[in-house]
């Protein structure tokens, strides 16, 4: 079927199977490999993107649900001013180790800060509960998002 949606601010039109996963459309059809596959069952958040501003696991989104939706991936978001604040926060806090989960956490941070520009540590922990990281123990990611919210005060 033919699917039309907005990807990182640009209209795209693709022809695909209705049940094809958004994750495969992004990675294999469009070459946007910043979104990672960690589990393929919506458990780890490595494939997280924003769909109409909401954080979703792209491995759980079928093509037919994409019509007229707006998708933001790490490739689009990294051009944004708010990304710079998150990046700075992650750098200062040491939030990145192996990096495989990182794009997902960046998108989760953006989704949270859009809703709540000044979250507490607890609110951050809750907001990233759907993203798994095996390297950091999470506290340095929480700290990174907290730092981003301060560094980027006014951007959200």
């Amino acid at each position, binding site marked *: 079927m033919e699917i039309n949606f907005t990807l990182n601010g640009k209209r795209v039109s693709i022809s695909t199977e209705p049940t094809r996963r958004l994750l495969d459309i992004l990675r294999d059809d469009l070459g946007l490999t910043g979104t990672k596959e960690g589990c393929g069952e919506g458990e780890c958040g490595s494939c997280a993107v924003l769909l109409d501003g909401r954080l979703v696991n792209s491995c759980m989104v079928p093509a037919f649900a994409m019509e007229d939706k707006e998708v933001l991936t790490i490739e689009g978001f990294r051009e944004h001013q708010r990304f710079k604040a998150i990046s700075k926060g992650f750098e200062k806090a040491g939030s990145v180790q192996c990096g495989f989960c990182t794009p997902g956490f960046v998108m989760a941070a953006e989704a949270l800060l859009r809703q709540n520009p000044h979250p507490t540590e607890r609110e951050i922990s809750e907001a990233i509960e759907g993203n798994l990281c095996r390297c950091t123990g*999470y506290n340095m990611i929480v700290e990174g998002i907290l730092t981003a919210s301060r560094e980027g005060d006014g951007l959200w």
Partner: protein
Amino acid sequence: MVNIGDSVKRFDFDDKVQGRAVYTADLWVEDRIYAKIFRSTRQRARIVAIHLPKLPEGYEILDYHHIPGTNRVPIVYDDQPFLAEDTVNYYGEPILVVVGKDRDVLRRIMSEIMVDYEDIAPISSIEESILNPQGYKFADGSNKIEYTFTKGNPDIHMEGGEKSFVDSFNTGYQEHAYLETQSITCRVEDGNIIVHGSMQCPYYVVEGMKKAFDLDESRVRVIQQPTGGGFGGKEDYPSIPAVLCALAAIRTGKPVQLVYDRKEDIIASTKRHPSDISIKSYLDESNKITAMDIDIKLDGGAYAGLSSVVLQRTMFSSTGVYNIENLRVKGGAYATNNVVSSAFRGFGGPQSAFAIEMHMENIALALGLDPLEFKKKHFLRDGDLSCTQGKFLNGIKLDEISASINETSGYSLKRRSSEKDKELLKGIGFSIFAHGCGFTGAGESEVLKPKVRLVKYSDGTLEIFVSSSEIGQGTQTTLGKIVAHELGVPLERIVHKYPDSKFCPDSGPTVASRTILIVGGMLQQCAIEMKARWDEEEIEIIRTYKSPKELSWDNEKFIGNAYPEYSWGANVVEVHMDPATYQVEVDKIWTVFDIGTPIDLKIVQGQIEGGLAQGLGYGLMEEFRIRDGVPMQNSLTTYVIPSSKDFPQPEIRLIENPRKYGPFGGSGLGELPTVGVAPAIASAVQNALGKKVSRIPVTPEYIKELIDNGN
């Protein structure tokens, strides 16, 4: 960078945060085809016949006959086939490789392959192997790999009439659960095999290629891509997907991607060895331990692989941080028809740390003594010998470590007043531990003979060429800092890319907490030599490791320095339990480590916090069980690893204690945080319940069992 420990921006930071880092599955999106592995669905069986479906054009199915060289993974014991031959020996063992363009078609083909099996009675546990030693054996004809070593004269004391205390402990499997599953891509170019992959040890993969395809090293090139976590799970294992991917690439002449899905990764990749450890201690009238008798049993799984080396480390770690004058340690790694057990952060250390720490606490409690005071009385001190009679090259600071953690956590005071908290199911626990850094015994200088290469170009840029991989632990950055700091050049002048066997010598595997100590130490030596020749326009220095003369090792009797160096640490953990669900909540974690000189404080913090979380997961929640040969957990939904809401931020302190041979006094860190925290949490639960915790993970089900029946 005034001090080497001052944190810098990681070399790999920008690429990773921007999603630009190219992991293996991100390569060659345009023109690659795919390989999938068809696996055994039986625990142990003879393969009677394989029925293949009619294949569409461009699709192929390959079996072990297609491997032109040796169908065995080369690693310590070369006994594991890349592809099963006439039998399968564990559930999930690879049998066939299916290759082609479309993954949906591959899935359909896989579902249409039929195998006729003739089941063979399996050996499912250590106990079954002991009862039936002929039941299943490793390729060397034995049902176990076993060692014994002694120190002093254990028997004199064991025959005496003194007080003795016995405990038995049991630890479970642990799955690495790196976020990036096993991933390899491979292509053939001018007859040469080029492998890109997610891995810790590029030269292990080189070795695998040489053996499987009967090739000269010059025909094989292995390049590590950014790697989404390893933790030991990408030490020896990647040789299997690498060879199978290369097989498909050679056969088809196309670039091939082989990426495991999460289910097959959990089922078929290696795990931490389950263990049964019993310890008997003999005490004199002053309540001092005079002798110990330790018996260690590991479930090695279907193939021996690295089990002998893991077993050795479990044995060499078995007396923890205590000076035991008279000792006997027996160990066995058993052949079972279970998934292959292998390397996992700590490499046998966590099993031993759990057993010895709980045992020491149990003796103290039975004697009505303060556990910390009882442990302190037995601490290794300067001049003491290790359990293998090795001299420690540096000052031992266990008293300082325990004083520091006691001061920051208030452990002793809280423990004394914790009696009244029992009804609230609150408890506090303590552990103190060490981890040997570097290869076992004389392995560094006699087995590995690691090399490093440092180049200065005419424009003043310096490039590091080592096979040590960046798997998230910060190797690129920390090794870069060591060179820059020694030469006094800005860090921006250092280039340190991912290892490529075409340019990087074999610096040994990225394991055993050896990268800073050994590889970093050699790079520092290169930099010192380079400094003396600094006026030369272009300089290339290659160095091979030489072991310090003070170290000695007898690999038959296990006498001498089991490891070139050690790092040390302690944990205190406070917990409470939900009285209805028995869910353990960790309220507070303190940690004090002696890792010599920290090479980058932010990276050190990351290793400590992440390692603690992995150790807490091991101690509390991560459960992988095999029932009737079939893994009961096969997803991240059923194999639960810690999430952001599980553990509080630990309070970390470092003790400065520069090492004689480490670069700038640095020692190993990667494994230490995972080694010692499980006993702290088990001790806290034990304290809360007033019941002996003798196995991990301490799940709510186990706690209920203890409350109902424990003593």
